């Protein structure tokens, strides 16, 4: 088996004296759609914020694409962070820029392509996510699903090898959510991207995930790691069963 594109070892995440996650270890293979799931408050977003370098872990190490994120500093850390894309739950599009300008922003900052070439690259990213005809719209004029797709287009701008998505289908209607799931699968298939997706939407998990890592609030850590079908059909513990079969405690 090849070297994993993401490796996490004994990760402990804490905010001051409050420990949220303890001893989390896993790895993600290149080209995989890897889902982080769990109930509200279990630490999914905390784990994501550590994986993308927004938070420093209390203990443990993270490697992204062969480089240790947790040991990197300054310019090296910034270069490492440019190697992956992130689409936030709210989209986090810049409200004062059009959709096209949002996608152009990283291209303008980090490539030496001429303006016409940059615009073509940006428009193709928008075509990839089905927003080609909304390039000149302002983010506020887009629906929630469109904003998330625009955020994915922006995250794809610099051709990252890894794309992190935070609750991509949250707040979307089932049809739009399914369209977004189909987009993720299509991008993973055509571009060979690795996706790390934080979600608790069961339909989405089964639609996109190759493997799923489940976190649990009371365990303060991971309680399962397997394919979603395996977790549903052979849950290793009661919390996993409750989650996948929507049972109350």
């Amino acid at each position, binding site marked *: 088996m090849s070297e994993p594109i993401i490796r996490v070892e004994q990760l402990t995440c804490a905010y001051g004296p409050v420990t949220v996650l303890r001893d989390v270890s896993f790895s993600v293979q290149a080209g995989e759609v890897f889902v982080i799931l769990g109930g509200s408050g279990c630490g999914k977003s905390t784990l994501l914020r550590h994986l993308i370098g927004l938070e420093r872990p209390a203990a443990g190490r993270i490697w992204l694409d062969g480089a240790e994120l947790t040991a990197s500093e300054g310019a090296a850390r910034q270069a490492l962070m440019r190697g992956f894309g992130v689409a936030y739950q709210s989209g986090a599009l810049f*409200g*004062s820029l059009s959709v096209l300008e949002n996608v152009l922003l990283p291209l303008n900052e980090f490539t*030496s392509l*001429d303006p016409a070439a940059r615009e*073509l690259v940006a428009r193709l990213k928008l075509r990839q996510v089905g927003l080609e005809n909304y390039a000149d719209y302002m983010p*506020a004029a887009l629906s929630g699903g469109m904003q998330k797709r625009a955020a994915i287009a922006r995250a794809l701008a610099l051709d990252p090898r890894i794309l992190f998505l935070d609750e991509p289908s949250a707040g979307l209607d089932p049809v739009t959510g399914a369209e977004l799931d189909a987009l993720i699968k299509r991008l993973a298939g055509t571009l060979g991207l690795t996706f790390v997706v934080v979600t608790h939407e069961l339909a989405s998990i089964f639609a996109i995930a190759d493997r799923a890592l489940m976190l649990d609030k009371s365990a303060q850590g991971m309680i399962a790691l397997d394919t979603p079908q395996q977790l549903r059909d052979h849950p290793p513990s009661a919390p996993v069963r409750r989650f996948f079969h929507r049972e109350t405690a």
Partner: protein
Amino acid sequence: MTATLTLRDDTLLLSGRLDATGCAAIWPAARSSAATTVDASAVDYCDGAGIALLFELSQRGIRIDGLSDGYAAMLQALRPDQPLAQRATARRAGWIEVLGRVSARTLASVQDRIAFLGGITVAARSLLLSPQRFRYAATLDVAGRAGADALPIVGLISFLLGVILAFQSAIPMKQFGAELFVANLVGLGLVRELSPLMTAVLLAGRTGAAFAAELGTMKTNQEIDALTTMGLDPMRFLVLPRLVAVTLMTPLLTVLAEVIGLFGGGLVLLTLDIPLKTAFSQAAQTVALTDYVGGLFKAAVFGFGIAAIGCWRGLRTGSGAQAVGDAATSAVVTSLVFLVVSDGLFALAYYYLGW
């Protein structure tokens, strides 16, 4: 290996890494070539920029040969046979249309201001009918932030204003041996004009902008919608406490500004061997009650205007972070225009009243 481009007969030979850096070097040459075919069999790597280059060449009718299956699939997924949507070009409007649009926008803005003032009046009326519904605690909180917290900056500016006014007027007065009358000038200037105006200018920059940003953020976060759907009138709930607090606090701050400004002027007069007691009594003889009351009334009107403009701009904020910034900027600019215009009107009115 970096990207290279070679033209052989009518074929472009592409090789190496077609990433953003590699493409940047060869794109202009590729764009201007008259090739009819691209041989991409020696391309080792191709990212979004490389695919975009091949897409552009393909759109020009150039055949792409030899591209590996994976990259060919990426290119095909972008449908190179279909043209991309281009930037919409804005139609140039004629001057009649521009004039009409500007007039309609101005009228709508005036109408909106009148409606806002009407809303304040209705909310104030309901408050008078049921004063127990007034948000006293919120008003005190706003008064603290707009008034007490502004004391240091108002005090500092007023002190310096008094000092500057006294020094500037002392020079010509000294030529006529009339240094004592500097106290008259400082007293009258501060009470009638400078203290109310400077206090209001400071509040416009500090409190008016804060109101616009605060209410603007609430609007973008749909907090205003939440209040409305809960049956709470934003005018009564948010605007009235701010209006009342600032309308009351501005005259109070003005009184403080007058005292501190006079003290600053008095210190300058001390250096001219005029005791503080003499300076103050000289100023008190000059400043009539109408000057004092007129200045404070003006300050109250300024405070009302600043609060109303800040709230109005905040409640009319569009969406996004920039809109909140625009609302705050607009609140300050509109308030300053309001202050100057209304100060001019007060000067005119007081002149005819003989104050």
